């Protein structure tokens, strides 16, 4: 027995759509006809009837759209509304351009900032299981690691991590038939390759076998491959002869087995040589096993280390930090500052946009009232208004995306240089940062800003009595209510703008302060270069002293050279120094240990960098051999050790334990202060650190920095300096030759970039704000033209009218300034933690801003009033 066939109906979704969306008045008969034909078709062609039904549905929906266009009476239609809106936007050309440009440019800046923040902060590092990567440190910041911690057997770390990367940072001098060159590199465990997902550009990566067999193989960076091997494809298998800083008396030959990919930033972007790690090293980077938290790992590693080192301080702990956090921590403050500045900009723009739209709403009340009186429906007017705003929003989003793209394309290299880290996961230009998400957010923000600011002002017109709008304009003066509303708009605008601009101005001043704090030395006209003395050639101090003297004499004798300075450590290294104590503690010196960085320099270092001596004298040649060890201390150190007293002639010493070497052999024993130097700024935010200068000649190391001051352009001296060095030792490479100004800016010591970015943002913010203030004030004056004309017709003089109007307008504006002044303390309070060198309550900034804003506001009232007063009163009165 066969079951009766299931009743088959047309596709349900299509039927549902038809019931709801088919043109009104059709539904019953139309669906009836369709279903009837469907059943006929179904019987002959089977399920193909479904497709037919869908096609018919689509046609019906299209017909609905078309019908919208041709509704009987020819009035309300979608496309007409859109056309109307577009025409209306085009008619108010000046206004629309202002809104689109102001909103577009601010949102463009915001989108660019958002893209940068997203890339550095929100985007996980582009590694497999990036959330499990952690860095390991054995000392908290400012403390020292327990002795012997680096020497223990770190096998135990395998219990918490499945990938363990350890390295040994080293410097390499390449010696072959070309002039010697130096490169940064690391001896490293091969776990680094799977950890970062590194695929070599050429050849292969290092393997565990390389380590086990102590294979003399190397991977080189792309820059080195290009500069040293001319980018030759057959570089694999070639030999590289080097001397490393760690084993300076050996010449080693490595076979190149691979080239690192472009933009290799994972360890440090200057890394150019990777070699298999020799011997055990403490771990630096871990990929934790699944389910092991950073906290967990820290506890277990601490316990493990304590079991290996019985006499470790029980308070001591291993510090485990998620790699992402480690990556962004140093730039978080800067990102927050930029984000804050952008937020201010967007707030000012949106605020002013709201005021502009409110004034525009009042101007257009008449238009809407007339149209409404002529029979346009509320929904029609609302729809058109929505289209208008959406159109302007979309245009603003377009401007925003183009400007953001240009900003990112142009600025990404500067951003990367400034942050000192490459943009993870970006391979082409910076425009790639403008992801779909960022673009969508920008579009939504732009449209929302327009809709939110543009529609509410019209609500009263749309839903109030139509006649109010028409008749409201016929009076010579306005109703009290309208005047109050208008005054409130101007007052709130000035107050809000003042507060936000004050915030922007404070941030600019802070950034400028950071950029302008004296460096303490003068990097102009100075060439910096590294010199690495080969330890085997110069094993004894005496030989190094001789070489240094000969090289510096030769360079100093070159025409155009003013001084040839030498310093034994990179002046901008993040080197905290060691504790020092005065031999006789001065009263008021405090109990906290003073930590000072020590630098070994030659006497010419002071004139070469124009490092000022505030008291006493600089180091001289005789200090290298004198019985007492002379030192020049920085003003900061003098103030800490001997507050309120002269430091000259006093003695102090490094308080390191006897078994720990101080930074320089020459700094052992008591040091006698012979001079006090100006403070040198070593980092962006921290202005000065206590410093000690001792004579380099006492015990020169092998790693030196040459700092040559030229009379004129230092770049022209470079070949002569190179020749002078090579004339003394043909195997001595002169590396990292660059103007000192570049070093200073690359070290981010002076946040010029931040200052200029913030200044640009603030200028844009101020421009938007001033245009907004002007537009609103001018609109007010225009509104009162009729009143002015009546007064003049009744016998008032034009100057009398101007005085009356301007004095009232000025009063309102200055009230706004006063209120804004009060509000600005709130904004300042929010920004306080990001401000350096300028108080959150700074009066000068506010006074200057008040003067500027008040003047512009009053001028904005005066100008249109003056123009009205020049017109013929009768003409104005005859206007509709």
């Amino acid at each position: 027995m066969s079951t009766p066939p299931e009743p088959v109906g047309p596709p349900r979704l299509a039927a549902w759509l038809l019931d709801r969306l088919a043109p009104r008045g059709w539904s019953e008969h139309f669906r009836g006809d369709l279903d009837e034909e469907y059943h006929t078709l179904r019987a002959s062609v089977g399920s193909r009837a479904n497709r037919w039904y869908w096609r018919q549905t689509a046609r019906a929906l299209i017909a609905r759209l078309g019908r919208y266009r041709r509704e009987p009476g020819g009035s309300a239609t979608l496309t007409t509304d859109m056309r109307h809106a577009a025409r209306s936007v085009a008619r108010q050309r000046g206004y629309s351009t202002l809104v689109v440009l102001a909103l577009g440019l601010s949102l463009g800046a915001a989108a660019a900032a958002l893209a940068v923040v997203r890339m550095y902060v929100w985007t996980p590092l582009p590694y497999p299981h990036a959330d499990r990567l952690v860095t390991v440190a054995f000392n908290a910041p400012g403390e020292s690691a327990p002795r012997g911690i680096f020497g223990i057997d770190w096998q135990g770390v395998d219990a918490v991590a499945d990938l363990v990367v350890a390295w040994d940072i080293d410097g390499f001098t390449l010696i072959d038939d070309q002039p010697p060159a130096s490169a940064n590199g690391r001896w490293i465990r091969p776990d680094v390759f799977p950890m970062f997902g590194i695929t070599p550009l050429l050849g292969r990566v290092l393997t565990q076998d390389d380590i086990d067999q102590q294979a003399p193989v190397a991977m080189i960076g792309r820059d080195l491959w290009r500069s040293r091997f001319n980018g030759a494809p057959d570089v694999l298998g070639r030999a590289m002869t080097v001397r490393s800083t760690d084993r300076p008396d050996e010449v080693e030959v490595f076979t190149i087995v691979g080239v690192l990919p472009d933009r290799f930033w994972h360890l440090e972007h200057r890394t150019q040589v990777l070699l298999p790690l020799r011997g055990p090293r403490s771990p630096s980077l871990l990929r934790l096993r699944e389910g092991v938290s950073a906290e967990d790992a820290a506890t277990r590693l601490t316990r493990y280390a304590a079991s290996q080192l019985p006499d470790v301080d029980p308070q001591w702990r291993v510090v485990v930090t998620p790699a992402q956090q480690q990556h962004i921590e140093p730039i978080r403050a800067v990102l927050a500052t930029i984000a804050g500045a952008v937020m201010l900009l967007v707030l000012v723009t949106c605020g002013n946009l709201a005021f502009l739209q409110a004034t525009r709403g009042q101007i257009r009340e008449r238009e809407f009232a007339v149209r409404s009186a002529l029979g346009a429906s509320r929904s029609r007017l609302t729809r058109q208004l929505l289209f208008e705003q959406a159109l302007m929003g979309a245009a603003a989003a377009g401007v925003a995306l183009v400007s953001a793209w240009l900003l990112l394309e142009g600025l990404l290299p500067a951003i990367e240089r400034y942050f000192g880290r490459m943009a993870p996961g970006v391979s082409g230009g910076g425009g790639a940062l403008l992801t779909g998400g960022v673009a969508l957010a920008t579009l939504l923000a732009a449209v929302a800003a327009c809709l939110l600011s543009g529609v509410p002002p019209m609500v009263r017109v749309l839903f109030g009595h139509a006649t109010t709008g028409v008749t409201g304009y016929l009076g010579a003066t306005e109703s009290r209510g309208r005047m109050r509303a208008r005054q409130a708009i101007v007052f709130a605008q000035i107050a809000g703008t003042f507060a936000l601009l004050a915030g922007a101005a404070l941030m600019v001043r802070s950034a400028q302060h950071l950029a302008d704090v004296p460096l303490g030395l003068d990097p102009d006209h100075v060439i910096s270069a590294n010199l690495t003395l080969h330890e085997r050639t110069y094993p004894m101090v005496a030989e190094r002293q001789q070489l240094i003297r000969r090289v510096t004499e030769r360079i100093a004798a070159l025409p155009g050279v003013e001084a040839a300075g030498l310093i034994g450590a990179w002046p901008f290294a993040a080197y905290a120094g060691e504790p020092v104590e005065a031999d006789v503690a001065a009263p008021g010196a405090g109990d906290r240990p003073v930590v000072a960085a020590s630098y070994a320099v030659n006497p010419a270092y002071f004139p070469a960098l124009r490092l000022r001596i505030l008291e006493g004298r600089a180091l001289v040649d005789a200090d290298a051999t004198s019985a007492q060890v002379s030192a020049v201390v920085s003003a900061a150190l003098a103030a800490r050790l001997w507050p309120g007293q002269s430091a000259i002639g006093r003695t102090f010493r490094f308080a390191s334990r006897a078994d720990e070497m101080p930074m320089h052999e020459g700094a052992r024993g008591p040091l006698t202060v012979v001079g006090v130097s100006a403070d040198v700024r070593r980092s962006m935010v921290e202005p000065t650190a206590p410093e000690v200068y001792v004579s380099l000649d006492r015990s020169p190391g092998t790693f030196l920095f040459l700092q040559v001051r030229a009379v004129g352009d230092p770049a022209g001296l470079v070949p002569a300096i190179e020749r002078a060095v090579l004339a003394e030792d043909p195997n001595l490479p002169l590396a990292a030759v660059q103007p000192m100004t570049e070093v200073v800016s690359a070290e981010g010591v002076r946040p010029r970039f931040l200052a200029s970015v913030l200044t640009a943002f603030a200028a844009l913010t101020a421009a938007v704000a001033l245009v907004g203030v002007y537009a609103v004030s001018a609109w007010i004056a225009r509104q009162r033209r009729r009143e002015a004309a009546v007064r003049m017709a009744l016998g008032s003089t034009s100057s009398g009218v101007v005085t009356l109007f301007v004095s009232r307008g000025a009063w309102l504006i200055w009230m706004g300034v006063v209120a804004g002044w009060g509000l600005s303390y709130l904004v300042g309070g929010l920004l306080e933690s990001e401000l350096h060198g300028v108080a959150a309550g700074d009066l000068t900034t506010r006074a200057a801003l008040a003067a500027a804003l008040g003047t512009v506001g009053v001028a904005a009232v005066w100008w249109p009033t003056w123009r009205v007063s020049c017109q013929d009163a009768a003409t104005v009165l005859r206007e509709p």
Partner: protein
Amino acid sequence: MSAYLGELEQLVLLAVIQLDDDAYGVTIRTLLRERSGRDVALATVYTTLERLEAKGCLLTRLGASTPERGGRRKRFFRPSARGQQALRASLAALRGLTAGLGREFQP
């Protein structure tokens, strides 16, 4: 003055006349397909009918429902006097313009 008719309007109006008492969406569409070879979407037929109705060329009445229509009623169409006049005028115009055309335009 009679209304002007577009080409599809002419065809639909002719179909309505041919179908006499049985002119509704499905039959009009079927007749158009069979006699003129044009497979017109039902929505297009409806739009045209609506336009003709707006021009005063058609009269409508509601008919009975059938089970295959899901209980929905039919809407029947017949030409109004104005519709007949408009059709006469278009056909006269056609005849006037087609008279004397060469063989190649003969059906």
